[in-house]
């Protein structure tokens, strides 16, 4: 079956442009656009795992308020502001593409072309919104209300997938990957958006400490960190294990990925609980 995306409407000029790019066009012609999207999803996932580990590692080193405020000043430079904005691209792409895959694989939604269009459209809106908030730099929201709303939405998404998968024959690790994916689909983009409502939200130690004194915010951050570390760890294992034919090497890979995940989970949980 030809799974070429229909060249109709607004995406037609975009697809024509993409088809002229040397590597992309080769794979799109020989394996289809979904193959290209799958590779983009892998690369975005890999970037996010690295970003997550670095995020936890550096925050653990900025433990005292003076060190935190001193080091966070560098994030006011234009180039770093720009890179933070660019980060919203892999975050939202991986989230929405993951959502599309869950709809395809778990809920039997096969109208993939429509889903890809929605995915691209919503991603553009999200990236634009993050950029707008970063430029304005004067937005604010009640952390409790914002995270209550986001947590409830994430729980509904996670529950929907869990309800569909829980009694299936699948491995528990695969099920948890899909469930955590549905959960993170809401929470990670929400985390990025919240941190850019205004510069003080993430860059001023006093504001962060005040927010983290709330047990509910602590709980949300804990769940977010654990879910993200598990999802990233399983995703990394899942991709890397495909290049290993030996069962022993694959088991070794499980041990290495599990060890790294546990170390970062320990650093992250300790940090969140003691702030």
């Amino acid at each position: 079956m030809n799974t070429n995306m229909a060249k109709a409407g607004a995406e037609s000029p975009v697809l024509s442009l993409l088809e002229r790019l040397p590597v992309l066009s080769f794979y799109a012609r020989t394996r289809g656009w979904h193959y290209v999207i799958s590779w983009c999803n892998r690369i975005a996932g890999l970037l996010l795992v690295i970003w997550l580990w670095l995020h936890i590692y550096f925050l653990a080193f900025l433990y005292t308020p003076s060190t935190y405020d001193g080091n966070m000043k560098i994030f006011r430079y234009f180039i770093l502001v720009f890179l933070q904005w660019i980060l919203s691209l892999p975050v939202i792409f991986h989230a929405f593409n993951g959502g599309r895959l869950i709809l395809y694989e778990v809920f039997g939604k096969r109208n993939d072309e429509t889903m890809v269009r929605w995915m691209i459209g919503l991603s553009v809106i999200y990236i634009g919104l993050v950029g707008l908030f970063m430029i304005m730099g004067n937005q604010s929201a009640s952390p409790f209300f914002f995270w209550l709303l986001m947590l409830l939405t994430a729980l509904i998404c996670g529950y929907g997938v869990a309800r569909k998968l829980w009694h299936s024959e699948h491995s528990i690790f695969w099920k948890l990957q899909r469930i955590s994916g549905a959960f993170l689909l809401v929470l990670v983009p929400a985390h990025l958006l919240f941190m850019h409502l205004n510069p003080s939200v993430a860059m001023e130690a006093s504001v962060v400490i005040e927010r983290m004194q709330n047990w509910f915010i602590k709980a949300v951050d804990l769940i977010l960190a654990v879910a993200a570390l598990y999802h990233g760890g399983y995703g990394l294992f899942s991709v890397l294990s495909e290049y290993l034919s030996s069962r022993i090497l694959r088991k070794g890979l499980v041990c290495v990925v599990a060890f790294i995940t546990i170390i970062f989970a320990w650093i992250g949980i300790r940090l969140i609980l003691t702030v």
Partner: protein
Amino acid sequence: MDSNYKLTLKIKRYNPDTKESWVQDYVLEVGRILRFTDLFRKINNELDASLAWNSSCEHAQCGTCAVKVNGKPLLACELLVENAVNQFHTTIFHIEPITIAPVVRDLIVDLEKAYERVNEAKPYIIEPAKNPSQGNDYQIFPRNLERYVDATRCINCFCCATVCISSHKGFLGPNAVMASIVRLMDPRETARKERLDTLYSEKGIYRCHTSKACSFVCPKEIDVAHFIALAKEGRFKSKDSR
């Protein structure tokens, strides 16, 4: 309209005796309705008798003539010259063996090795059901019959496995998974647990990332990704799924 094309075929050669690999150019003046297998035969007859390639039925039913043309795996017996020129917008074609098993010589791959993974999925009825009573046939729900017929069209040409994003080490491969799914839909199969265990094993459907390249290249136009997604949905768990 000019009915002939001047083609350049850049064919990847391999000599197993010297372990030497190289690309050899063949320039051919050919008619528009010739198939690529006809071009290989023409090369053998007129230019180079040493070029080795595979084919058997030559009407897209056996899959032995699968090769990569300009990076895309397809059946050489199905590809007409004119269609190839229109599809790839060129008269220069890079032809390579499919990358699913070691190359034996030139365009021929070790199909026995390739079939090892299909054999792991047991492409036959493991435990046949008892014969139905007289006057009754094995039954399959009408709503599932079309799906079943669609799935049985797989010819194991390995085009899907060649392009699969999940590489060729940890995954049985799309066609091997299809072989198992077909038998799960078959009312004559009773070894459902064994089949589901294979499907949900480490080398089974967890290695599939729904890149849908299998569906994109399938010469029989089977939506392989759809069938694997049905397995992920758990649609073959019960007998009613047949």
